[in-house]
C-alpha cells in the first residue's frame, strides 16, 4: 500500500517532468519555425529586389535602344514622327536612374556601375542631339556627322556592355543568395520532422504513464471502497465509531455508526463537539471537556473513558482513542475511534463478582478444614494424655482385658491423630499467597530424608538419588512432596525385601509425553521415584491420588488416604503433573513433571 502510494507520487513527478519537456520542445519548434519563415521571406525579398533591378536596367537599355532606332529612322526617312521617342526619353531615363540608385543604394559596386552608365547615357544623348542637328541641316555626308555617328554607336555599345555587366552582377548576387537560402532551408524540414517525432514520443510516454496511473488509481479506489464497506461493517459488529477532527479548520466528521452508538439515526445532527457533548453523562462531562481541551492542545488523545446517555435513557460506557495523521499536503487530522464497552464492563463486573464469591467460598472451605482439624486435635490430645496417665498410674490395677482395651483405644487415637495431621497438611497445601522461590531441590530432598530418618533406619531402606537442578518452587511444599512420596514407598514396602528407592532426574520435552501434549510449557523437569515395594494394579493409577482413597485395608497398612492427594495438590500448585505406574508385587513408580519457568 505504502509502496504503491509512493510510486504514484513518483509518477506524478515524472509526469510533471515530461510536461515541462514537452512544453520546452513546443517552444523550440515555434522559435525554429519563426526563424525559417523569416529567412524565407527575406530571401524572397532579395530575389524580388534583384528582379526589380534587372527590369529597371533592361528598361533603361530598351529606352536607349528606342532612342537610337528613332534617330536612325529619322536620319534615313527624314520623317519627324521618328523623333517622338527622343522627346520623352530624357525625363524617363532620369526617373529610371533615380529608381535604380534607390534600389541599389546598399550595393556600392552597382552604384558605381550606375554612375558610369549615367555618364555614358548622358554622353550618348548629347551625341544624339549633335547628330540630329547635323542631320536636320543635311550634313549627313559631312565627316563631322560620320564621326559623331560612329562615336554614338561606340558609346551606345559601351553602355550596353555596362548594362550586361550590371545584369551579370545582379544575377551573380541572386544565385549567391539563392544558394545561401537553400543551404539554410534544406535542414529545416528534417529538423522540424525530428522535433515532431520527439514531441510525439513524449506525448505517447505521457499517455502511457497517465493511463497506468489511472489503472492504479482505479484499483486503489476499489480497494478503498471495499475497505470502507468492511470498516463500516466492523464498526457495527465491534460497536465502535470513527471520527475525524480537522485541526486546521476545527471541524468534525462522524461515522454513521457513531450516531448509532448514541442511539440516533446516522448523520441526524451536525457533527459538532457541542452536539456530541449533549449526550455525555453529566457526571463525566467536566472530565471529558478537560480531556478534549487537552487533546486540542496536544493534538493527541490517549485512551479516555466516559459515559453517555442515549435518548431512551440508557447509560452506555464509551472508550475513545485518537492519533494525529499528517497527509501529503501537510494538513493535520486527528483520527479517533470511540467504542461502546458497556458489555465488556458488565461482563467484567459479573466476572469480578463471581470471582469474589469463589474466593469467599474457597476461603470458607479452607478455614472450615483448618478449624475442623485444629479443633479436633484438642480433645484427641486430651484423650491421649489421659490414656498415658492411665497407663502410668493405673495399669497395674487393670485386668488383661482392660489392658487390651486401653491398647485398642491408643491405636485408634493415634490413627485419628495421623488423619487430623494429614488433613491439616492438606488444607495447608493451598496455593494462594505462596511465593515461588529459587530453591535447591537437593537440599529439600535431604531435609525430607532427615525428617524421615527414624522410619528409614527402622526399615533399613536405601535411597539413592541423582542431582536435581535449582527450580522455582514453594520450598516447604516440595519438601512435603518428597517426604510423602518417600514415606509412601516405605509404607508399602514388601516385608521380605529391603526397601530400595531410586530417585532420577531428567529434562523432558512436553510434546514427547502423552499427558503433557496440550500443556503450555515446552520443557518439564522430570523427577522419578521408583521403589521395589508391593506396587499396585495399573487400573488404580488415577484413583490413588483421590482424597481418602485407599487400596488396602487399615489393618494391613497404616495409610490415611491423604498423603498422595497432598502430593497431587502440591504438584498442581506448581502447574505440574504427577503420574503413578504400578506393577503388582514388583514396585511402583511416581513421576513428577514440573514446568521450566
Amino acid at each position: 500500500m505504502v509502496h504503491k502510494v509512493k510510486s504514484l507520487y513518483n509518477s506524478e513527478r515524472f509526469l510533471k517532468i515530461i510536461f515541462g519537456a514537452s512544453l520546452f520542445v513546443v517552444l523550440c519548434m515555434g522559435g525554429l519555425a519563426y526563424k525559417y519563415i523569416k529567412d524565407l521571406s527575406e530571401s524572397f525579398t532579395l530575389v524580388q529586389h534583384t528582379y526589380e533591378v534587372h527590369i529597371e536596367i533592361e528598361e533603361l537599355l530598351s529606352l536607349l535602344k528606342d532612342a537610337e532606332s528613332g534617330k536612325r529612322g529619322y536620319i534615313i526617312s527624314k520623317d519627324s514622327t521618328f523623333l517622338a521617342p527622343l522627346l520623352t526619353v530624357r525625363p524617363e531615363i532620369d526617373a529610371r536612374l533615380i529608381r535604380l540608385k534607390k534600389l541599389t543604394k546598399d550595393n556600392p559596386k552597382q552604384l558605381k556601375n550606375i554612375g558610369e552608365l549615367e555618364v555614358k547615357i548622358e554622353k550618348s544623348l548629347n551625341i544624339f542631339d549633335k547628330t540630329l542637328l547635323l542631320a536636320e541641316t543635311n550634313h549627313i555626308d559631312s565627316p563631322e556627322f560620320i564621326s559623331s555617328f560612329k562615336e554614338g554607336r561606340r558609346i551606345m555599345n559601351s553602355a550596353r556592355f555596362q548594362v550586361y555587366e550590371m545584369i551579370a552582377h545582379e544575377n551573380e548576387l541572386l544565385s549567391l543568395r539563392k544558394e545561401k537560402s537553400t543551404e539554410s532551408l534544406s535542414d529545416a524540414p528534417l529538423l522540424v520532422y525530428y522535433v515532431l517525432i520527439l514531441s510525439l514520443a513524449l506525448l505517447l510516454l505521457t499517455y502511457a504513464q497517465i493511463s497506468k496511473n489511472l489503472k492504479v488509481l482505479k484499483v486503489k479506489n476499489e480497494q478503498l471502497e471495499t475497505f470502507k464497506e468492511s470498516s463500516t461493517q466492523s464498526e457495527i459488529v465491534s460497536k465502535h465509531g470513527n471520527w475525524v477532527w480537522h485541526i486546521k479548520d476545527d471541524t468534525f466528521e462522524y461515522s454513521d455508526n457513531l450516531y448509532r452508538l448514541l442511539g440516533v439515526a446516522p448523520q441526524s445532527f451536525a457533527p459538532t463537539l457541542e452536539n456530541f457533548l449533549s449526550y455525555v453523562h453529566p457526571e463525566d462531562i467536566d472530565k471529558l471537556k478537560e480531556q478534549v481541551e487537552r487533546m486540542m492542545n496536544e493534538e493527541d488523545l490517549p485512551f479516555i473513558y466516559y459515559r453517555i446517555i442515549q435518548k431512551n435513557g440508557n447509560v452506555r460506557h464509551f472508550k475513545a482513542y485518537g492519533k494525529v495523521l499528517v497527509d501529503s499536503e501537510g494538513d493535520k487530522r486527528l483520527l479517533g475511534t470511540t467504542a461502546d464497552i458497556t458489555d465488556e464492563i458488565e461482563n467484567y463486573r459479573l466476572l469480578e463478582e463471581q470471582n469474589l464469591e469463589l474466593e469467599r467460598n474457597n476461603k470458607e472451605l479452607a478455614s472450615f478444614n483448618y478449624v475442623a482439624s485444629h479443633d479436633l486435635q484438642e480433645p484427641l490430645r486430651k484423650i491421649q494424655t489421659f490414656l498415658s496417665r492411665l497407663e502410668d498410674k493405673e495399669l497395674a490395677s487393670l485386668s488383661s482385658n482392660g489392658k487390651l482395651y486401653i491398647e485398642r483405644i491408643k491405636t485408634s487415637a493415634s490413627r485419628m491423630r495421623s488423619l487430623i495431621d494429614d488433613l491439616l497438611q492438606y488444607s495447608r497445601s493451598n496455593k494462594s499467597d505462596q511465593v515461588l522461590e529459587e530453591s535447591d531441590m537437593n537440599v529439600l530432598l535431604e531435609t525430607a530424608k532427615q525428617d524421615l530418618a527414624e522410619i528409614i533406619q527402622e526399615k533399613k531402606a536405601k535411597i539413592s538419588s541423582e542431582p536435581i537442578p535449582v527450580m522455582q518452587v514453594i520450598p516447604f511444599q516440595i519438601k512435603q512432596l518428597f517426604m510423602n512420596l518417600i514415606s509412601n514407598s516405605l509404607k508399602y514396602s514388601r516385608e521380605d525385601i529391603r526397601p530400595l528407592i531410586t530417585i532420577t532426574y531428567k529434562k523432558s520435552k512436553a510434546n514427547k509425553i502423552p499427558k503433557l501434549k496440550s500443556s503450555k510449557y515446552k520443557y518439564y523437569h522430570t523427577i522419578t521415584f521408583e521403589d521395589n515395594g508391593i506396587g499396585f494394579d495399573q487400573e488404580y493409577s488415577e484413583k490413588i491420588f483421590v482424597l481418602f482413597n485407599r487400596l488396602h485395608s487399615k489393618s494391613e497398612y497404616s495409610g490415611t488416604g491423604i498423603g498422595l492427594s497432598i502430593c497431587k495438590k502440591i504438584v498442581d500448585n506448581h502447574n505440574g503433573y504427577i503420574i503413578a505406574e504400578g506393577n503388582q508385587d514388583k514396585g511402583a513408580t511416581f513421576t513428577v513433571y514440573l514446568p521450566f519457568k
Partner: protein
Amino acid sequence: MQDDYTHVVLADDDEDDRLFFIEAFEELKMKTKVETYKDGVALMDALLQEDTPIPNILFLDLNMPKKSGLECLKEIKANAKFKDIAIAIYSTSASEEDIENTFVNGANVYIKKPNDFNNLKKVLSDVVTINWQYHTSGLNRDNFLLRL
C-alpha cells in the same frame, strides 16, 4: 534467679491442661513454684498488681477467651517491668502463621502441647532448665519451635 526456686506461670483456659501442667511439675520434683490463670485477663490483672512477684517463665496458651495469648505477649513485651520474663508459647496448633506471629512479637520458645504425659514432663523440664540468656542470643526461626 534471685530465689532458689523457679517461678513458673501458665495462662490457659483449658482446665485439663492446667491440671496436666501442675501434675507434671509435681512429678518432676524440681524447685519450682507453679501458678496458673484461667485466661489472659486474669493473668494480666495479676501481673500488673504491685505486690505480685514477677515470674521467671511464663507459659502462654494462644487461644483464650477475653484476651488471647498473642495480646498478652504484646502487652508484656511493651512493658519494661517484664523484660526479664522468658515467654514460652504453649499451644495445641503449630501453624506457620502462629509461629511466625509470636516469634516476631518476641516470644522465646514455641511448644506444641504434647499428647503424651511423659513427653509433657520432658518438655517442661527442658524449658525450665534452658539457659535463657544463651538460648535467647542464638534464637532464630528454626530453633524457636521446640521439637521433641
